[in-house]
């Protein structure tokens, strides 16, 4: 089990995470979901003992990760956002190096090697230099180094980042296989990825936990609120975001307006509303002499829940 209590991390004076408290049970697959900068990577790096928390405690498999990081590192396999690869090494030599670093004997690594190559489907490139491999294969080598020592806990930070659609499907299948033998923690901002892979979600926003539970739990807890997304062409103004936000926030029924992001040549705003107010929103936008590019409900339940949770956090900040 992983138990984090009042975990916080500051970079200088800036809060990157926390305080957050959560538990992850053995055998679970938990998704850390959040926008860029939400604190996902910071949380996972702390769990992997790559970072020391500024405050709070963390126990991994009953061992205190702050006072005994060495013991915790033996229990964990970590794939960071950028796989930690030595491009001058061939795949098997690199995996031997990673295994031995984690305390395995040479004989044990050699015994484990065929299994790792099979699980990660690296057999055809086993004797190739890592520098010659495609991005998809490099990502697989990154997973292989994380599982070579058969860790109890597997932490994967954005494992599908930069992969093409075929590689994403392959990586998803690989993660499904890994779930059989490991407690898996995955971070992603791709909602479909998380929803298809994880048993439980932990939604992070601005360093705080906004929601915990299965996709259904999260959706149920927010069922009374509706979700409208509106895309508006960026007007020529000193503060276009502020101008549009002001117009949208004034619409009857709008509870909160999330931080916008650019999409399709305009700014996409996610609105938490107490009723279906698409007609009011379109009228307000047109009356403000703004160009309305798109108006819709969020596409899926999880997406809707996620945007609402994050939007709520933005509104409260």
């Amino acid at each position, binding site marked *: 089990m992983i138990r984090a209590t009042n975990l916080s991390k500051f*970079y200088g004076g800036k809060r990157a995470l926390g305080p957050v408290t959560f538990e992850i049970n053995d055998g679970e697959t938990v998704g850390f979901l959040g926008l860029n900068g939400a604190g996902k990577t910071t949380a996972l790096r702390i769990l992997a003992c790559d970072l020391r928390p500024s405050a709070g405690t963390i126990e991994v498999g009953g061992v205190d990760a702050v006072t005994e990081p060495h013991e915790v590192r033996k229990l964990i396999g970590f794939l960071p956002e950028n796989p930690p690869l030595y491009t001058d090494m061939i795949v098997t030599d690199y995996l031997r190096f990673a295994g031995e*670093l984690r305390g395995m004997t040479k004989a044990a690594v050699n015994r484990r090697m065929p299994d790792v190559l099979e699980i990660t489907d690296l057999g055809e490139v086993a004797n190739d230099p890592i520098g010659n491999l495609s991005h998809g294969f490099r990502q697989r080598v990154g997973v292989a180094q994380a599982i070579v020592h058969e860790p109890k806990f597997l932490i994967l930070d954005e494992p599908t980042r930069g992969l093409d659609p075929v590689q994403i499907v392959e990586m998803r299948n690989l993660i499904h296989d890994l779930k059989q033998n490991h407690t898996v923690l995955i971070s992603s901002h791709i909602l479909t990825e998380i929803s298809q892979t994880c048993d439980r979600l932990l939604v992070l926003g601005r360093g705080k936990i906004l929601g915990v539970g299965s996709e259904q739990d999260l959706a149920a807890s927010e069922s009374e609120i509706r979700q409208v997304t509106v895309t508006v062409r960026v007007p020529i103004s000193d503060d276009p975001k502020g101008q549009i936000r002001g117009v949208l926030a004034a619409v009857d029924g709008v509870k909160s307006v999330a931080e916008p992001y650019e999409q399709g040549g305009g700014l996409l705003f996610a609105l938490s509303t107490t009723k279906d107010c698409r007609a009011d929103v379109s009228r307000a936008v047109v009356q403000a002499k703004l160009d309305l590019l798109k108006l819709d409900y969020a596409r899926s339940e999880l997406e809707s829940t996620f945007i609402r949770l994050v939007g709520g956090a933005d509104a409260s900040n």
Partner: protein
Amino acid sequence: MRAISIIYRRELGTYLRSPFGWVIAAILLLIAGFLCQGLAMSGEQLSAIVLERYFNYTSSIPLFGGVLLSFRLLSEERQNHSMVLLNTSPVRDSEIVLGKFLAALTFLSIILLLSVYMPIMIKVNGKITTAQVLVGYFGLFLLGASTLAIGLFGSALTKQQLIAAVVSAAMVAILSFIHILAARVDPPLKEAIEQIDLWWIHYQYGFMKGVLNLKDVVYYVATTYFFLLLSTKTLEAKRWQ
């Protein structure tokens, strides 16, 4: 010890596999060879003087090679994100530093060994003792260990390899020429500054002349230890940032 050995083998393999290490070795040996052939062996000289000059010019190998072989050791790991593998493995920072340092020292020693043909030529054609040669090489080895430790510290400071190289080179240059400053100040500061000089005082007045002084050995060992300790502490501090 096991972790040191694992990191040592990987790092030494990188030097031996990549053209980087061999290109540096070739350039250093070429420069040292030209300097020795053109300057140390020019004119009729006593063979002991020729050997002394040889060791003077050959000290460029550990001075420059030490920096060139070490500046990338840690900065490159951070730049390529491979440091995460070491940081999330049950390995101490001191083991990372020692493994990398010993690998670089081994490769530098290989370069020094490849230059041995020159003193052999001097011995064949003149009158020098084997002890003189051994003391000189021991000095080069200790000087190399110190410059490597300084370079490793520079490498621990930043992930920018160029900055690491410049900082390391600056530290080695300052410590090598600080005797110039010592000459301009009064005692007891003069003696104090002289004693931290990396090249002139502890190498030129001792090992280069075939004289083995315990204080010079202690100085180089202490300097190496000091900068390795600084590297370890820097790594520890950065690991938790």
